[in-house]
C-alpha cells in the first residue's frame, strides 16, 4: 500500500486554518488544507467557478471560501455549497505517524470527486 501513497512530509508544515500548495508538472496544482479541527484534506487548487486558488481562502469548518468571489467549497467532496454549482477534484489523503500521504495516482490525474 505505502507504495501507492506519496509522502509529502510532516503534518506540522501546515498550521491549522491554513493550506499549502504543491505544483504538479504536467498536472494540476494541489492544495493541502489543515482545518481548525485538525483534519487534513487535499483538493485541486482551482475553484470550480473561475479557477481561483482555493489554498488562499478562509477555512471554516470543513469548507474553504474561495478568495476570488467567495464561493464556499467543501473540502470533503470538492463540491460548491449553497446556491453555487460545481465541483473540484479531491485527492485521497491519509495521515500516518504524523506524516501526510496523498494517493499517487490521484495526484497525477485527480479523480472526479464523488
Amino acid at each position, binding site marked *: 500500500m505505502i507504495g501507492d501513497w*506519496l*509522502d*509529502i*512530509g510532516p503534518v*506540522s*508544515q*501546515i*498550521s*491549522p*486554518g*491554513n493550506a*499549502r*500548495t*504543491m*505544483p*504538479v*508538472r*504536467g*498536472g494540476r496544482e*494541489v492544495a*493541502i488544507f489543515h*482545518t*481548525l*479541527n*485538525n*483534519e487534513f484534506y487535499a483538493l485541486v487548487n482551482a475553484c470550480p467557478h*473561475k*479557477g*481561483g*486558488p482555493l489554498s*488562499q*481562502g*478562509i*477555512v*471554516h*469548518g*470543513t*469548507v474553504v*471560501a474561495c*478568495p*476570488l468571489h*467567495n464561493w*464556499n467549497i*467543501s*473540502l*470533503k*467532496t470538492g*463540491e460548491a*455549497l449553497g446556491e453555487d454549482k460545481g465541483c473540484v477534484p479531491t485527492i485521497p489523503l491519509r495521515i*500516518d*505517524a*504524523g506524516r501526510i500521504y496523498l494517493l*499517487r495516482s490521484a*495526484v*497525477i490525474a485527480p479523480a472526479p470527486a464523488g
Partner: protein
Amino acid sequence: MNAPATFPDSRIPRPDGTLPQRLVVVGNGMAGCRAVEEILARDPARYAITIFGAEPRVNYNRIMLSPVLAGEKTFDEIVINDAAWYADNGITLLSGDAVVAIDRAAKTVIAASGRVEAYDLLLLATGSDPFIIPVPGKDLAGMVTFRDLDDVDKMVRAADSGGSAVVIGGGLLGLEAAHGLSLRGMKVTVIHLMPTLMERQLDEAAGWLLKAELEARGQSILTGADTAEIIGKDGHVSAVRLKDGRVIDADIVVMAVGIRPATALAKQAGLEVGRGILVDDHMVTSDPAVLAVGECVEHRGTCYGLVAPLWDMCRALADHATGAPTGYEGSVTATKLKVSGIEVFSAGDFSGGDGCEDIVMRDAARGLYKRVVVKGDRLIGAVLYGDTADGAWYFDLLRKSVDVSDIREALIFGQAFASGGGALLDPNSAVAALSDDAEICGCNGVSKGKVVSCIARGAHSIDAVRAGCKASASCGSCTGLVESLLAVTLGDQFAGERGARTVCKCTSFTHDDVRRLILEKHLKAIPAVMQALHWSTPDGCASCRPALNYYLVCAWPGEYDDDQQSRFVNERMHANIQKDGTYSVVPRMWGGLTNPRELRAIADVVEKYNAPMVKVTGGQRLDIFGIRKEDLPAVWADLNAAGMVSGHAYGKSLRTVKTCVGSEWCRFGTQDSTGLGVQIEHMTWGSWMPHKFKIAVSGCPRNCAEATIKDFGIICVDSGYELHVGGNGGIKVRVTDLLGKVATEAEAMALCAAFIQLYREQAWYLERTAPWIERVGLEHVKAGLFDDPGAIAALAARFAHSQSFMQDDPWAKRAAGADADLHQHLAEVRPLELAPMELVR
C-alpha cells in the same frame, strides 16, 4: 544475556490425561491480563499459562497512574490482579523479566534472564513505547516519560524538592502529568506544538476553554511552541529552549508527545508489522501460533491508544483461543480527561462538513460548551466541555448508531431532557418547561415569570421587553432565551426576527452588541467571544471571523494576537490577489510623491520578476502586476531596500492620501497641501479599520485631489482648512459632509486622527464611512467629537496608542523570512515518464 535455561515441563495433566496447551503471554499489562481473564472465564483448564512482564510488579490499572501522580490514589488501590490471583489460577508470573527474542521455528521465547519458555500459543501484549522527540539533551537525567509506575516515582521524587517542571505535549497524557505535578506544588509549564490543546480530541472552542481554565489554575500553557533543545547542567536538565528562542527553567522535563506501538520483538521474529503488529479479526498475527492484542497491534489499519478497544479485542481473542471464534470489527472511541474539576469529553467524528449539522450550546456563565454533530438521522460526534454527564449517553447513541430524528431538536439538552418529553421537542419547549421562578436574565435578576407577564402586558419585541422588565438589557447573553419566551408566549404573533442585523448566521448578536460586550467582558480572543456570546457554530464562518478579528484588534491594541487565519487572503498575503492567482504589489508613495531611487527600484522589480504590467493607479502610486506568491518576499526585500513600505492597497485599512501640488508650486495654492498630506499619511498608515479608508488634501477649492469624495478630505483655504468626511467614489457616489473648519495643520491632524478613531471604534466591520454616517447621522459623529471638549484629544490619543503597535511594515517582516510557509510550496511533483513519481522539496 545469560546462558539459555530451559525449565522442566511443570504442566499438570487434565483429568483425561492430556496435557493442557502452553500459552505464553508477553506483557503483564492491561491487555495481556485481560485476555487471560477472558480465556479463564471461558475455559479455565484449557491452557497452562505463563506471563512475562518487563515491569517488576503485578498487573495494575495503568490509566490510574494519573490519580497516583496527583496523590489521589496509592499504587495498592490501582492493582487489578494481585499475587494471589496468579497463584489461584495456576499462572506463572515472571515479572521483571523482559522477553528478548522469539524463536518461531522452535516455538520458544527467550527472556533477558536467559530463561527459555516453550509455547503452543504465544500472545504478544507489549503495549506502546513513549515517543521521544530527537532533540539535543533528550538523554539528560531529569528527563522522564509517563508510561509506568517507575515514571510516576521519578516525578513524585522530583516534585518533593519543588521547583519547576516542563511538560512537553499538551495531549491527554501531558495534561494529566502537568496536573499531577502542579498539585504536588511544582511550577508547571506545558509546551504544545499545536495551537490548541488536545487537538486530536477537542475542537478549537473546547481546546481554548481548557487552556483558559488551566491557566487560571496557575499553569503556563505555551501553544504553537516547538522544542529546540533540552539544556543541561552537570548532566541534569536545567531548562528547555524553544525554537523561537524562549528559554524555560526546568528541574524536570516530562516528554508526553505520543506513543508508538511496541513492535520490536515481533519485527525481529519476522512477524508482519505495519505501524503495529498486524492482526486479523481474531487477533491472529501472520503466524497462526502467535496472537497479539492491545496497543501494540494494528487492526484494519487502526492502532488504538485507549483501553476500551482493548476490552473488545480481548473478548474476540478469547473466543478464538477457546474454539468459538466471533471476531472483532474495530471500535469507536471516546476520550475523557482525568483532571479533577475539569470535565472534558469527546467522541466520534466532529469535523462537521457536508450533510452534517452542528448543534452547539454555550453557557458562558457556567462555562459550558456542548457540541453534537448529526448526519442524516444519526449522531456521529460529540464534544462536551464543562459538563460531561451526558457523555456516556451520546457515546451510546453514537456507537449503536441510533436513529435520533425524534429527539433531534432536544439532543443538545441532554438525556434527561430529550427522553423526558417523548414528543417532538424544540428549544422553545425547553424554555416553556422552565419554572416561573427560573432566572432568565442574570445581570438584572429577572425571572421567567416576570418576562412572561411583561410580554403579556404588550411587550412584543426584544426591545420592548428590555424596556419593560430589563431582561436582556445589560450583557445581552440571555437574548436567545427572551426570544424563545416571546415565541412561546406569542406564538405566531412573534415575527422572530430581531430588528437589527446580526453579525452573521452564527450569532443572534448585532455588531454593536458584539463590540460593546468585547469591552465590557474583557474578551480578548476569538474563541472567548464565541463562548461568551453563545456562538451557534463551533468556529464561526468566513463572515464573522474577520469581523471579530478586527473588533479585537481595535479593542485591545498591543494585547490581542492578530489571528491571521481570520483575515482575507489579501490581508494575509499583504498583496492583492488577481484573477489568475498571482498578486499585485503597490508600495506606498507618501502623498503621491516619489523620487528616482523609488522609481528605479520599481523598474528593477518589474524587470527582475518579469511583471507583465505596471500601472499608475487612481490613488497616485504605482501598481506592479503578476507577481507569484513565491516571489513576493523577494520583491518586497528589493522595494524595502529602496526605502519603500507596503501601501496596504489590499487592506481594510488606510489606503492612500491623495494630494495636489498646493502652495509650493501651484499659482492658486493656499496651503502646503502636499506636505500636509505626507504628514497625515505618516500618521495614519498601517492602521486597521472597519473598511478601507481614503484621505485627500486639496490646496484650494478647485479640489484637484478630489477630497470631497474621500473618507476624510481636506480643502485648504486662505484662512485654514475645511474638513470633510464620509465621501465615497465607489459604487454609490457620495459627496462628503462638512465636519468643520480649523486654522492650523495641527488641529486638522488631530481631528483627522479623532475622526478615524471614532470610525474605528463604532462602525460595523465592512462599513465604509459613507454608509456609517448615513446610518448614525452626521450629528452623532459631531456629537462624538465636539460635545465633550476633551473628546478629540482622547480619541486622538487612543489612535496614537494603537498606531504605536501597527506601524511596522508587514513586508519587511516577510522579506526577513516571517511566515515563509505562506509563500513557499510544500513540495513539487514531477512525474517522470518511466521512473516512479518524484517529489522535490
